[in-house]
C-alpha cells in the first residue's frame, strides 16, 4: 500500500455537547494530520478537548455530542460520511485505542488470554488453538513476563503496568495502522510509565504504526513524539515538530505551558503559572480566540475574527494573530 497523503487528517472539526446547562462548545475547528508510522502528541490540560477529539475519531462520542462541521479522513475515507458498517470494520481493526485506566477497560471477569482470543477470533479467521498461541505471542510481545501463565490471569491479579501491557496487546491484536493512546500512563509510577512509553515507541516503530498520543504532560510528549499539537479550550493553538515546538514556541499558551512545567533541575523561581482560567465553554460570547482573555498580547484584532492555524515556518503552524 502506498503512503500517499496523511493516514489520518482532521480539518475544521467542530463539536458541541448539548446539555441542560447549555451548549458546551467542546471543539472549535480542530485540525491536524498524522502520517503513517508517526507519533503525534496532542497535549492539553483538562477541558482542552484532547480526549473528545480522540473519541470523535473512534466514534465513541456520547449521544449529547453534535458535530457542527469539519472532516475526519482516514486513508482518504470520510469517517463522518461513510456508512456505519464500514466504519465499524475500520474501528477496532485499522484504528484501535487504549485508555487511561486499563483495569476498567478490560473485562474484569475474563482472563486476559481469553479476551485476546475473543478479539482475534472476532476479527480474523482462526481456530481456537491458533488464536491461543497468537494470544500468548502477543503477551510476550508486550513484554509480559511468563506469558503462558499470564494467559489465565484475571485483570485484578495484574499490576497497573501489566494491565496496560495486556491492553496494548489487545489493541495491537489486529495490527492497526493507527493506535490512539489516551493518557496511557497516567496513574502509573514513573518507572512503569517509562517502560510503557518505551514499549509503545518500539512497537510502533517495528510495525510502522502511527500513534496519536494524548497527554497532559508536555515533557513526556517531548520525549517520545515526532510532532506535537497543543490544544486549549477546544482549539488547536500550535502544531510543530517536537524539537521546534519546545525550542521555539510561538503561541503564548504553549510558552506559558512550557514555563509552568517543572523540569528536573529547574528552580522554583523559574516556573510560572499560566494566568487566568479556561473560559466557560457554555458562554454565548466566547471570544474567537479562546485564549484571548488569558493573553498578555491581546489586541482588538484578537476579538474580531478567529485566528486560523496558519503555517509560519515549514511544518510549524500557529493559531495566533500576533505570532510572528
Amino acid at each position, binding site marked *: 500500500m502506498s503512503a500517499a497523503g496523511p493516514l489520518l487528517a482532521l480539518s475544521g472539526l467542530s463539536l458541541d455537547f448539548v446539555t441542560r446547562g447549555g451548549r458546551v462548545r467542546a471543539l472549535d475547528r480542530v485540525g491536524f494530520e498524522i502520517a503513517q508510522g508517526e507519533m503525534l502528541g496532542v497535549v492539553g*490540560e*483538562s477541558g482542552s478537548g484532547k480526549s473528545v477529539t480522540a473519541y470523535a475519531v473512534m466514534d465513541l462520542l456520547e449521544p449529547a455530542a453534535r458535530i457542527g462541521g469539519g472532516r475526519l479522513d482516514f486513508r482518504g475515507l470520510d469517517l463522518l460520511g461513510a456508512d456505519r458498517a464500514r466504519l465499524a470494520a475500520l474501528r477496532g481493526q485499522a484504528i484501535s485505542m487504549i485508555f487511561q485506566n486499563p483495569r476498567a477497560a478490560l473485562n474484569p471477569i475474563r482472563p486476559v488470554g481469553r479476551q485476546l482470543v475473543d478479539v482475534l477470533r472476532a476479527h480474523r479467521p482462526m481456530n481456537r488453538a491458533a488464536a491461543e498461541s497468537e494470544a500468548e505471542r502477543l503477551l510476550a510481545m508486550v513484554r509480559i*513476563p511468563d506469558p503462558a501463565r499470564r494467559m489465565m490471569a484475571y485483570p485484578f491479579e495484574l*499490576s*497497573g*503496568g*501489566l494491565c496496560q501491557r495486556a491492553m496494548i496487546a489487545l489493541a495491537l491484536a489486529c495490527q492497526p495502522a493507527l493506535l490512539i493512546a489516551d493518557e496511557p500512563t497516567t496513574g502509573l*509510577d*514513573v*518507572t*512503569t*510509565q*517509562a*517502560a510503557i512509553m*518505551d514499549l509503545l515507541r*518500539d512497537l510502533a516503530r517495528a510495525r510502522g504504526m502511527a500513534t496519536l498520543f494524548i497527554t*497532559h*504532560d*508536555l*515533557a*513526556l510528549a*517531548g*520525549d*517520545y513524539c515526532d510532532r506535537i499539537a497543543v490544544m486549549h479550550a477546544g482549539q488547536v493553538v500550535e502544531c510543530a515538530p517536537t524539537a521546534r515546538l519546545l525550542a521555539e514556541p510561538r503561541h503564548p499558551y504553549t510558552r*506559558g*505551558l512550557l*514555563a*509552568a*512545567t*517543572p*523540569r*528536573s*533541575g*529547574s*528552580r*522554583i523561581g523559574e*516556573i*510560572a*503559572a*499560566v494566568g487566568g*482560567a479556561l473560559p466557560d465553554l457554555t458562554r454565548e460570547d466566547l471570544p474567537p480566540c479562546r485564549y484571548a482573555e488569558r493573553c498578555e498580547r491581546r489586541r482588538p484584532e484578537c476579538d474580531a475574527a478567529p485566528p486560523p492555524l496558519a503555517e509560519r515556518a515549514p511544518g510549524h503552524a500557529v493559531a495566533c494573530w500576533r505570532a510572528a
Partner: protein
Amino acid sequence: MSALLRIESLSKHFGLRGGGRLHAVDGVNFELAHGEALGLVGESGCGKSTLAQLIARLIDPGAGRILFEGRDLAAIPAERFAQVPDRARIQMVFQDADESLNPRHTAFDAIADPLERLKGLAGTELRLRVAHAAELVNLPGELLGRFPHQLSGGQKARVGIARAIAVEPALVILDEPTSALDVSIQAMILKLLDRLRRELGLSYLFVSHDLAVVRMLCERVMVMYLGRCMEAGPTAAVFDRPRHPYTAALIDAIPGTGRRGARPRLEGEPVSPVDPDPRRCRFHGRCPRGEQRCREIMPELDGGRSGAVACHFPLAPA
C-alpha cells in the same frame, strides 16, 4: 542543630485477613530540622503515604519512636492525639481537595474548623484568624462564603493549605498536594507553598511521586522502596549523583530529560510487601546488579546528613 522531628526505627505492618503481614513501613530513620523541607519520594506501595500518616498520628505505628521537639508521640494512641496540644503543631495537606473538603461546608467553615476544635476560638477572633489565613494563601475574601463546588481546583487547594496553616503548625505534611491539578495551576500552588515555608518558618514533609517538583521545593530528599529507605541526602546531590540503583532508575524515568534513546529500564515486578524475606534487599529482582550478597544480607542505610545509601554496591559518586 536540634531536629524538629526525629524518626527512629519506625515500622508499620498491617495484618492481612488471609494471614501474613504487609510491611508498609519497615525500620525507617530520619531527621527533619526546623524550617527544612524534606521530600519523600517513591512509587506506589513504597510506604511514603503510610509514613506520612504515622507522623501525622492518623494511624498507630507498630514499633519505633516519633520524636517531635523531643517528645515521643509514637506512644500516644491515634484516637487520643486530637486532644494533645501537638495536634495543632503538626498539620496535613491532602492530595485531593475535592475529597478532603466537606461539600456542605463553605471555605470559611473549612478553615475555621481546626481553629475552633484545636484552638477553641470563636466570634471575632475566629473570623480574624480565618481572614488572615485566607490572605496568606491569596484567597480573596469574597470566596470564603463559597462551597467547594463553587471553587476552582486552584482555589480548593488554597483552602486546604489555609486550613492547615491557620493553627500555626511547626510541621506541615503535604501528601501529593498538587497531583490533582493542571500544570498551569500547579506552578502557582508550588510557589505559594515555597513562599509560606520561608515566611512562616515551617518545616515540610513533602510526599510526592513527582521528582522534578520535589527537587524544586525540598532541600533534602528520602527515597523509599517497599517500606525501606533506600537513599537520603541533600536534594541536589541525590539527583545529580544518585548512589542507589533504584534512585538512578527513578531519576532516569523523569519525563523531559530529552532522553529518546533506549536506556535500560527496570525489569520485573516488585517483590511482594507481604512477609518479605528479612534478609533479602527489597530491590533485589528488579536491580540491574543484584548479587548473591543482596539476597542474603539486607543492606542497612549507611551514611550521614550529607548522603546515606542502603546498598551493598552503591554507584560510584560521579
